[in-house]
């Protein structure tokens, strides 16, 4: 079983990102579970969301405490939240950022990646620079790094779980996939 934790801010789409990733893995024939951290969701407040991916039905119903991977949708969160908490040694962290991975000092036990998902989202008309919708771009980059889901399945996942701007979202995921 692979367990992934997402960090975002209320309104940024971290929960949606966890659902898109789960839907993509489901399209790839996996069993999945995706859910928000059950906090009070307020716009701008730090939120968490989780995705579990397995070959058999997922039975465990608690939150994820020891993730295999962490996705950070908003780089400003790194100063506010302990994003590496519980992350397994050798686990990966993907940050939505225009900076290089080595700019982030998160210890040397993890593999750090960055992707400018905000730029990709804006280029594809997904939200504005101030409020970009980065979830599909970040998922595209994440599946490239981890190889857990095929890009085609991500596209199918977007088709099934994103109500609007399907094509733009698919393009954003593909662009992120190809640029990392």
């Amino acid at each position, binding site marked *: 079983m692979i367990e992934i934790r997402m960090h975002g801010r209320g309104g940024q789409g971290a929960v949606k990102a966890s*659902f898109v990733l*789960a*839907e993509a893995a*489901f399209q790839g024939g996996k*069993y*999945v*579970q*995706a*859910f*928000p951290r*059950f906090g009070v969701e307020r716009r701008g407040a730090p939120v968490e969301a989780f995705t579990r991916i397995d070959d058999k*039905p*997922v*039975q*465990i*119903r*608690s*939150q994820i*405490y020891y993730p295999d991977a962490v996705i950070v949708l908003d780089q400003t969160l790194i100063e506010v939240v302990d994003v590496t908490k519980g992350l397994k040694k050798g686990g990966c962290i993907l940050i939505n950022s225009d900076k290089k991975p080595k700019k982030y000092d998160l210890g040397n036990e993890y593999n750090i990646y960055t992707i400018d998902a905000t730029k990709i989202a804006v280029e594809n008309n997904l939200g504005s620079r101030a409020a970009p919708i980065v979830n599909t771009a970040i998922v595209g980059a994440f599946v490239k790094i981890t190889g857990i889901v095929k890009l085609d399945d991500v596209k199918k996942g977007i088709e*099934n*779980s994103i109500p609007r701007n399907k094509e733009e979202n698919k393009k954003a995921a593909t662009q992120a996939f190809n640029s990392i």
Partner: protein
Amino acid sequence: MKKTMIGNHAASWGAQLSRVQVIAAYPITPQTLIVEKLSEIVADGELDAKFIKVESEHSAMSACIGASATGARAYTATSAQGLALMHEMLHWAALARLPIVMTNVNRAMAPGWSIWADQNDSLSQRDTGMMHIFASSSQDILDSTIISYKVSEQVLLPTLISFDAFFLSHTMEVVDMPPITDVDKFLPPYNPEYKLDVNNPRSFGALTSEEHYYEFRYKMQNAMDDAVGLIKKEGREFEKLTGRYYDLVHSYKCEDADLIFVTSGTIAETTNVAVDELRKDGKKVGNLKIRVIRPYPKQDILKAVKNCSKIAVIDRNISCGYHGIFAQELKGALYNESDIPVWGYLAGIGGRDVKVDDIKEIADETFKSKKPVDMIMKGVKI
């Protein structure tokens, strides 16, 4: 067909597949998404039902009662304070013998506004005369809705299907949706013998003196007794269509267990994972999930636990002034029948997360303990 959906939508689709004819509901977190989805389903023409917007949960159940009395298949959903407001009408529905099926998302009672999982809301409806199911997966929610109409409409008792807020209501997972043609074969249209019918007028719910009231309770009790067998029978019928069987209790590795956990809801699922891990460490444990609490599956429980030497009940609820409700019920069932000692644990109150490690701790504690304890409040910060 397999699909991904959140638990709330599994409830909506369960109602759609059951071809409910009247839906009356009032939105409340974390139930809102059930009703939103249903209104969409009705608006899209995927279900031919009357969707009644009401001004309160009391009215929602009242509308369902009216609809059901005319012979329509009625559905509602609520949570916590909403269910409490419905309380009077739950007794009404049960005593009027109306087979309404409803969903309750288990949420903590307020104040101390926690919108998270806690069973006190629905357990407070224990004595209304409704059948009461605790579903533990989205699949269970969807399937239970369909099976419950079939059982309810035979024994003429309403069913309350409860499931944990957020851990199920807002969690997306894979659900296998049976084709509606299969469901149609399983669940025929509802056509009761007694109903509001202008061509065959009668009065309902009239004054009943002490000369007859007792007898209505007697009939209700018999109906509950019949429901035990019917839930199993219809469960088997449903299995023929879908391959999935639902019983009143589900036991996991109980046969040779020294210690059996008694659990419900999502905690039961996490406990199965803990059982596997504890077994790897050589500890003989099992898990008995109570899926139906009314009718109370006493014989099934006695059979499942008969070989064990200790029982640990995990309650996500409390009857303040006594202790966990599942623990009380279990001890009531064992008394006169068996002398297996019972340890009562509270966990997950107000939606606090219950982890595999917490359950392992409960196992260790119970194995070590010599004397049974009514209630151990796990994890409470003093």
